[in-house]
């Protein structure tokens, strides 16, 4: 753990606390700042849908506690923060005996797996393409072909997903059009069939993310590579007679990659937000799809829980990247703030 100072870790951790607190406060404030009486609207919606008639009295009471009709706002606020810390979001409004936490817990692994898979592939591919585009010794043929990979880089992933569904799921019938695994024939577990099925189902949504977002990384990396190329240490390394692959990887890419990692931490929030749409359009049983379900069904306790968990997960991922950063770039902790 060279280069990792206590001050740096403490600072990053405080940042994490601040982000999570800010998120929790936002979730608390939104229903209260919304115009009109959202609570009345919700009751109306719930009774109109007629889904929860049996337990309605109990539920409305549970839900009143959630949104706080009992006690002044600061008491409610403290209660809410305490619930967030213990991850206790109560019962789901629409699937009563189920607790919100259980429902999220079932969905969360799918989202984390899909996003980690997609983001890592995107990051590696995008930076590789960008590095080759910005490297002077790249073969001209390769360099003229590489920009083709950027074709889809500005199209929103979820709309691109529709196109992929149309081509690969309906027209060619190569991939399934929904779900995360073959739930009719398989049980989740560490079997080869299950993992193969999960991978088969994840390819299309992951492709929608990878193909649309690697262009951004490639462009950023190209710029960084060109900047790196002009540095004195590159000329020195060349003069020392180092081999080209070593120059490329250890000198150019290694330095150019650092700002990209910062950019990754900054863009995680956007990626998580976008996954809600991807999961909804691919009917992928992750947290994003669950959020869509909770909104269309008026399950407000579930919704609050999901949003908090998504903010918590994103902030934690950023914290992990931040803590890994000094290992890759030891200079960072020497900076005075």
């Amino acid at each position: 753990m060279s280069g990792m100072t206590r001050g740096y870790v403490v600072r990053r951790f405080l940042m994490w606390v601040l982000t999570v607190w800010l998120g929790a406060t936002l979730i608390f404030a939104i229903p209260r700042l919304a115009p009109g009486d959202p609570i009345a609207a919700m009751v109306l919606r719930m009774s109109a849908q007629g889904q929860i008639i049996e337990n309605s009295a109990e539920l409305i009471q549970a839900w009143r506690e959630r949104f706080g009709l009992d006690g002044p706002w600061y008491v409610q606020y403290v209660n809410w923060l305490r619930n967030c810390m213990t991850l206790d979001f109560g019962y789901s409004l629409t699937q009563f005996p189920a607790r919100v936490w259980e429902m999220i817990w079932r969905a969360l692994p799918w989202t984390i797996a899909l996003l980690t898979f997609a983001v890592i592939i995107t990051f590696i591919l995008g930076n590789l393409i960008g590095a080759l585009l910005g490297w002077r010794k790249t073969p001209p043929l390769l360099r003229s072909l590489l920009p083709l990979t950027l074709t889809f880089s500005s199209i929103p992933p979820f709309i691109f997903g529709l196109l992929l569904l149309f081509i690969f799921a309906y027209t060619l019938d190569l991939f399934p059009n929904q779900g995360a695994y073959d739930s009719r024939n398989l049980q989740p577990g560490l079997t080869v069939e299950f993992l193969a099925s999960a991978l088969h189902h994840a390819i299309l949504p992951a492709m929608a993310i990878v193909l649309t977002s690697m262009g951004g990384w490639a462009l950023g990396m190209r710029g960084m590579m060109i900047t790196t190329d002009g540095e004195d240490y590159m000329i020195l390394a060349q003069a020392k007679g180092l081999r080209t692959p070593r120059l490329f990887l250890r000198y150019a890419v290694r330095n150019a990659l650092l700002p990209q990692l910062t950019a990754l931490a900054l863009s995680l929030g956007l990626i998580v937000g976008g996954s809600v749409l991807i999961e909804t359009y691919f009917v992928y049983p992750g947290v994003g799809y669950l959020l869509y379900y909770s909104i269309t069904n008026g399950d407000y306790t579930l919704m609050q829980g999901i949003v908090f968990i998504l903010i918590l997960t994103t902030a934690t991922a950023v914290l992990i990247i931040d803590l890994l950063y000094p290992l890759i770039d030891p200079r960072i902790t020497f900076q005075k703030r």
Partner: protein
Amino acid sequence: MATLTAEPVAARPAPQVRVNRWDSPWLNAKLIIGLIMVLSVALSGVVGGMFWDLRLARVGTSPQDLPPAFVPGGTWAHPLGTENSGRDMLAVLLTGAPRSFRIGLIAATIGLLIGVVLGCLAGFLGGWVDRLILIASDAWITIPSLVVLIVISAFVRQISAETMAVLIAMFAWPGPTRLIRAQVLTLRERGYIRMARLSGANTFDVIFREMMPNMLPYIAASFTGNVSGAILASAGLEALGLGPTRIPTLGMTIFYANQASAVIRGMWWWWGFPFLVLAIIFSGLFLIAIGLDEVANPRLRGLQVKQ
């Protein structure tokens, strides 16, 4: 500010330099093609209204489920076909596209204004103000904005396009703030800025008359990125059925298409045309952003020029 054009020209090797006013970094192909793509979509709404009856975008004004005219079964009365509640697709696109732009422009402008104010404050004042602004923008950027926007839209049922733009703007400021702060920090120590300050120019003048012209390409690139991000956010909300529901928008059309299983039913025109228009908008904005990057950073203008 003469420095704006003088700098890139000086960075090029001697044989390339032509004293020609068309030899401006602002006239690069990516920027121009991008602008043409974006403007053609943006203007289609204005011009389209003269040639096509936009009232056909309302429910029940046309026959249902017609394919486009160039496909067997289609008619020229509805060149791009119709969807399942009797809206004419051409009219839907002509009303939807400019609306998306408006939301994007409003949100990005508000975001940029906040960014300019906070970025200049942070860069100039430094100290705890700087630290506070930086921490706030770092924390804010980590929160998945779309998720929060989805929740807000779920609570605010009848949402107008303008409200949506303002809500999106709430999440559009950290990017410009960070960018402008970084620029102010580097520019602050430049000779001509010191000169201006020594000459007695006030801070306002230094920021807007000396610094802004040099930051312009960066600001424009970030603004373009924000317009694109805001359109993406609004299209995303609409595509979940959470946008304004009275007027047809591109995202909402995709939402309805998805709900009615247009993909399975083979009604490709229903989601395909909004997809195409959005693809043109986003690709155009993307090209503009790359073009502006090249204006800002002469090194990016093609590798062959070097050495």
